[in-house]
């Protein structure tokens, strides 16, 4: 059941992205920006956490989940250490993903070569 929920909610978030790509001519980069900010704002007003509780990875794996993670970290740090937490919590809670992406991408750039244009 868990997997079905993750599949359906995650798939639905991707469909929203697909509709934006097809209907608005937004580049995929802009959609990623939009989704991250949307996830952060939705968590700020308390709407994303219920979705995470319902769908698990279906809500955390798509990019709004990255925004959710950023906002969640900032809010938790604010609770712990006051206003300065707003400046530390976001990146702290997403450090693993960002660092992994930078390190693995760098290693991949060392190993792989660009494919020939067809």
């Amino acid at each position: 059941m868990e997997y079905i929920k993750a599949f359906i909610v995650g798939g639905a978030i991707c469909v929203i992205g697909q509709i934006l790509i097809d209907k608005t001519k937004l580049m995929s980069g802009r959609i990623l920006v939009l989704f991250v900010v949307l996830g952060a704002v939705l968590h700020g007003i308390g709407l994303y956490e219920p979705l995470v509780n319902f769908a698990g990875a279906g809500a955390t794996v798509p990019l709004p989940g990255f925004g959710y993670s950023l906002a969640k970290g900032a809010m938790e740090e604010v609770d712990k250490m006051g206003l300065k937490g707003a400046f530390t919590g976001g990146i702290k809670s997403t450090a693993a993903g960002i660092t992994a992406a930078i390190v693995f991408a760098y290693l991949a750039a060392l190993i792989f070569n660009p494919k020939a244009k067809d």
Partner: protein
Amino acid sequence: MSQIQDMKKEYSKMVEELSPKSNLLRDSARAFWVGGLICAIGQLITNIIKSFGYNHDEASMLTTIILVFLGIILTGLDIYDSLGKYAGAGTVVPITGFANSIVSPAIEYKKEGYVFGVGAKMFTIAGPVLVYGTIASVAVGIVHYFFK
């Protein structure tokens, strides 16, 4: 002025007629099942990690690292982009797509050097995502401080 407006209208009409018709229903179905599948795999990874005794937060963090790793390896092997041609947003929106957006230009601009090629171009798409994501998180944190 109105002549320019007319020309612009005509031009966008021409573009619309010439660009390939995208089939929204078909594109959405593809994005749905591929994107959904990536999330279900994420759930599977999380559950496997939890079964080794890690708590929920640790498991989510490790899942993110593993998915980022998979996205990057599959991009390097030229599999992820082929999948992307089929699945569209189904491969763009998951965290694996974020990883893809970092590693693709890193490999592509390797010939421009390791500092201004790989090091700088990595963030062509990830840069804006991190800038706006970070600003949003700070804003949410500040609002939370005053209105909790």
